[in-house]
């Protein structure tokens, strides 16, 4: 790595020479940077960009069951998607799902973080319990809730019936299924979101609260005027992450509803999976994937545009 450059005698120092050295230096720096990034770039290239390019390519074709292209159809896959009520429904469901899960997850996690931020005896146990859902895999969590939502022997309906309320067709009623899946997702995301928000709370300087105490501010006033604004970077982070995750939801759908009933929970990623794995329409699946990618990109971009302005960085 060392460069054994001999010092140039003072008289020979011409400007052109330096430019050359500088350019060399820049090239060297570039290669050094690339060297560090190479492993990531290679793997991203192979397992992400290439598949992405391949996906875009496939989206203009029809394919056979093995995924080989057969007929070039230009934009037809895309046109079909936009005229397909099933796909439009799945876009709608996806957005609804984001709308259901993201705010609720964050509000609940924030509540948990706020109460778990008090200096009380045994608080560590509660923090551990609240973050526990992060350690539960999608497969396991979905199985838990699959049982909870069971129409006859599920705990939820048994509780409802015990309270004299008719059971709900959690996973069979189109009006409820998306909500049921959302509940599962919210529960699964709680742990991670909670941890980040708790960390955010703990990094708020206590003198802010002390000075507010001197001003005689009440609990909720402090919450609203100090905690939330000071927490905004953490909030911004979890919002971004939960939105991206929500758009990419797959496992719980596969186990809980498989897209039903009446396509109510056929979120885009699941729809892609079904199109590819069940229908062998890799072309159409690819077109959906491309659209999903674009949607997430736009959403994130918007979020950064709108959100960053409201974030108070320290």
């Amino acid at each position: 790595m060392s460069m054994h450059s001999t010092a140039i005698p003072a008289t020979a120092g011409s400007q052109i020479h330096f430019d050359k050295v500088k350019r060399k230096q820049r090239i060297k720096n570039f290669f050094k940077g690339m060297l560090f990034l190479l492993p990531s770039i290679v793997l991203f290239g192979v397992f992400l960009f290439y598949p992405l390019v391949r996906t875009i390519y496939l989206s203009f074709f029809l394919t056979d069951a093995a995924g080989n292209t057969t007929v070039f159809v230009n934009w037809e896959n895309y046109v079909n998607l936009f005229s397909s009520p099933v796909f439009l429904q799945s876009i709608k469901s996806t957005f609804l799902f984001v709308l259901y899960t993201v705010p609720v997850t964050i509000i609940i996690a924030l509540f948990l973080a706020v109460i778990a931020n008090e200096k009380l005896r045994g608080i560590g146990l509660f923090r551990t319990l609240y973050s526990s859902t992060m350690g539960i895999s999608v497969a396991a969590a979905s199985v838990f809730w699959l049982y909870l939502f069971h129409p006859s022997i599920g705990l939820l309906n048994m509780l409802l019936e015990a309270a004299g309320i008719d059971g709900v067709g959690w996973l069979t009623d189109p009006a409820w299924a998306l909500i049921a899946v959302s509940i599962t997702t919210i529960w699964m995301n709680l742990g991670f979101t909670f941890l980040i928000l708790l960390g955010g709370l703990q990094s708020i300087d206590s003198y802010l609260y002390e000075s507010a105490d001197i001003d005689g501010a009440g609990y909720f006033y402090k919450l609203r005027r100090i905690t939330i604004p000071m927490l905004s970077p953490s909030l911004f982070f979890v919002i971004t992450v939960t939105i991206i995750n929500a758009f990419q939801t797959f496992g719980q759908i596969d186990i809980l509803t498989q897209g039903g009933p009446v396509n109510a929970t056929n979120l885009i990623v699941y729809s892609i999976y079904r199109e590819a794995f069940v229908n062998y329409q890799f072309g159409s699946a690819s077109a959906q994937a491309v659209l999903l990618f674009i949607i997430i990109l736009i959403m994130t971009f918007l979020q950064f545009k709108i959100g960053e302005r409201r974030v108070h960085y320290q």
Partner: protein
Amino acid sequence: MTIPITRKIIFYLLLIISSMLVFSPTLMAFVMSFMTNQDIMTGSLPSSLTLDNYVKAFNQFPLLKYLFNSLVVSIVIMLGQLILSSLAAYAFVFLEFKGRDLLFYVFIATMMVPFEASIIPNFHIIRDLGWIDTYPGLTVPFFAMAFGTFLLRQNFKQIPKELREASQIAGMGDFKFYLTVVLPVARTSLVTLGVYGFLTSWNMYLWPLLSTTNDSVRTVQIGLKQLQTQEQLNDWGVIMAGAIIVVIPTLILLFLGQSKLQKGLTEGALK
């Protein structure tokens, strides 16, 4: 600061109620895993507790082997992610070269690509590499990680630039500086990312199923999937036992690493 007693009680109430709500599904699964199918089906309280479900789960597949594979796969992915992410983050923080920022945004953009959407081309790559049923097939595709790079980059930025400069003056190369200074100094965030990476890889489920054809490298999540039937009646007790087996290692890890994890994630999220 002292907290008034009434407020203390209110907080404890809130804490206890919400922890019961949050933890009850897990607790319920735990209890169910010891119940007989009869009790579960009739929706009664457990009349007797039994280990049969666990015995059954262990007998149905080589669960220990699956657990071992999960461990290997998760550790390898974790290490791979740590190495690649930290190298990349190092380049993004300490090296200056043309196109660095653009490249960083490209990295971040990769977070948006849902893996399931490109799972089939990925599978074809693994197939062409001859990596089906191998640990590399299960692990290598996940080494490069935009989230990890992002997290570590935020963290490396906290390392004073002067440390780098002091070592430059001392004549220390980038790679050595990365190894001997950056990695040890950023220990907390590496642990965080490690725990995060371990948890997510442990929980992977579609990819291990697709990229393996036999039990030699299969992971425990597939075992859980196998416990669910397609055309027959689910044996909930066994399924829950399987789920508990799957969940316990990660829960333990989480309980042990919770405070570090939280600290590291906060640094990544805040700055």
